[in-house]
């Protein structure tokens, strides 16, 4: 039985349609990440699932029950807000136990369960403090604690790490992954950061302007993006897009990059122009001048573990990003031959949909 099911969910704000019909099935215990650029409707989706916003049309099921019009508190969901949404006038313990207090549970029972939740998150020592006395990471944990104690069927996280600094973000990311393993709970997690999505998700849901662009596990989404949008959004630095043309040659079509035939498409291809997508790691400098194109190094980015170079080419207005092999030293101004890994090319039609991937 699916833990969460969305059926043709649509949402309008006034005349503006923000969610254009989303269908999704989430398995029990699955970690689902919604990823997409800012403003694409991720938060709106979470708010609809939680019940804070109502759908315009469509249905929502949690554990098989239709909860489309159920009050948020009765949906068995818990939400962790981007801002943490901790009550400034309550201690950590009071914040975590807020829901139990509303339900008028006995004080001793509340204290016991609050402590248990705090133990999971290792914040037992902070129970007496106020939110203003906590660091960002600690506040985050308290917010998660308030979610855990509800024992929900589905956890909802709205960009929970975006207010933390880089180092803390990595650490909390790890902890959320650990928490998921430990609780085995269903999690719907929203982020605009594709790294977070790749590292945490069982399945990634890439959203573009209120529509699902692709659903799949991280590798699928990375290796076989359904369209140019997904290809460009997932992966950092992002995929290079090179304009190319098609020439018909007998029964088949050849891809022409800057006048040279690069590869052949299996059958006759009715388009004149396509776009070629190549990830930086699938470009390399050739040893000889036998290459696909020449590029002039504009800038080198040394990140320590890996390095990237940005190349100017004669056929592409945007610089082309290439990952340097270890020990490869280049400097700005070098004019170097570049070859493309034929096994990892993505071909997109002009409209952006994927035409072919890999060995062509």
């Amino acid at each position, binding site marked *: 039985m699916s833990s969460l099911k969305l059926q043709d969910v649509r949402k309008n704000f006034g005349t503006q349609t923000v969610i254009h019909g989303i269908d999704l099935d989430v398995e029990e215990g699955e970690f689902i990440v919604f990823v997409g650029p800012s403003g694409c409707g991720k938060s709106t989706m979470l708010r609809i699932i939680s019940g804070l916003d109502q759908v315009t049309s469509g249905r929502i099921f949690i554990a098989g029950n239709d909860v489309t019009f159920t009050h*948020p*508190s009765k949906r068995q969901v*818990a*939400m962790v807000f981007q801002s943490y949404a901790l009550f*400034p006038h309550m201690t950590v313990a009071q914040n975590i136990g807020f*829901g139990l207090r*509303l*339900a008028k549970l006995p004080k001793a029972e509340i204290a016991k369960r609050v402590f248990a939740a705090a133990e999971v998150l290792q914040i037992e020592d902070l129970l007496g403090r*106020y939110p203003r006395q906590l660091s960002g990471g600690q506040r985050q944990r308290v917010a998660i604690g*308030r979610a855990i104690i509800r024992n929900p069927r589905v956890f909802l996280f709205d960009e929970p790490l975006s207010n933390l600094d880089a180092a803390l973000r990595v650490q909390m990311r790890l902890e959320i992954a650990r928490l998921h393993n430990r609780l085995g709970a269903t999690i719907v997690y929203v982020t605009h950061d594709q790294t977070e999505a790749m590292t945490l998700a069982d399945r990634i849901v890439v959203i573009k302007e209120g529509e699902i662009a692709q659903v799949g596990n991280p590798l699928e989404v990375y290796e076989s993006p359904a369209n140019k949008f997904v290809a460009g959004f997932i992966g950092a630095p992002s995929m290079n897009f090179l304009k190319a043309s098609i020439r018909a040659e007998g029964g088949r079509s050849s891809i022409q990059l800057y006048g040279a035939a690069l590869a052949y498409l299996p059958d006759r291809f009715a388009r004149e122009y396509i776009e070629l997508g190549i990830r930086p790691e699938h470009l390399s400098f050739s040893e000889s001048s036998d290459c696909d194109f020449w590029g002039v190094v504009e800038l080198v980015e040394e990140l320590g573990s890996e390095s990237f170079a940005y190349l100017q080419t004669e056929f592409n207005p945007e610089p082309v990003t290439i990952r340097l092999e270890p020990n490869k030293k280049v400097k700005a101004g070098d004019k170097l031959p570049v070859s493309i890994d034929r096994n990892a090319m993505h071909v997109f039609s002009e409209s952006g949909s994927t035409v072919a991937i890999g060995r062509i």
Partner: protein
Amino acid sequence: MDRSIALWRTVFLILPVSVFAVFVIWPLLSSFYYSFTNWNGFNPNYDFVGFDNFAKIYTDRLFASAAINTVIWMVAAIILPTGLGLFLALLIDSRVPGGTLFKSVFYLPICLSAVVVGQVWVWIYQPDWGLLNTVLTYFSSEKINYAWLAKPESALFSVIVAWSWQQTGLSMVIYLAGLTAIPSDLQEVCELEGSSWWQKVRLVLLPLLAPATVVVIALSVINSLKGFDILFIMTEGGPFNSSDTLAMHMYNESFRKYYMGYGSAIAVVLFLVALAIIWLYFRQLRKVDEIYS
């Protein structure tokens, strides 16, 4: 550079500071001075009488009743406009249709003068054809013509109700400003956790509105100390001084009986009371600030 800034400072401050000093600070200090004299308002000469005026305060029955009335007024000021203003703000903040219009309606009395408000309410309380008695008669078996403002038991309270009618809008907008400042996700947490409206108000909104409450209460109390005009219009402190307040008593002693020295002593007492309230207010505000920032 520094010298030119100092020069500009002086140029800019000289007018506001000197006007304020001459027409507010100096008179304030002079009030202390006159409170030790027996000046009668006309005679250029007067004598120093030491603490006589303050001793008179002790024995002045009217002062005692005016002080009690002032305290009653203050307590009512804490309860009526604050409570009603909070209630209205909570209702309006729940995104009802026409919220802006409601806001304007409740706020409207603020722009009316105390004279007009007083007169309107004199009509409402009028025994024979006043609105209040008309409505009460409608619900009762006999004709009611109770003279609200002419009976010592009801005069003060009737004026306070009229005054609260005007003040409520002010409390309401301050509470509304406070409610807007509460992050909406805190309210959403309440919804997610299944809190009832009353639980949300009691456990979350009221504590978070503490700063607004401090401001509203301080403002109501201070304004109740200033409450003079509306009283002057509606009862002039009567009947039999039953609705006298300290501000009214001060006016009567100084400008009706021309005991300006004694009036100054009452003014000094008023000043000290106001000072104490302001001090309390700032202390409370700082305490609240510490918790919520």
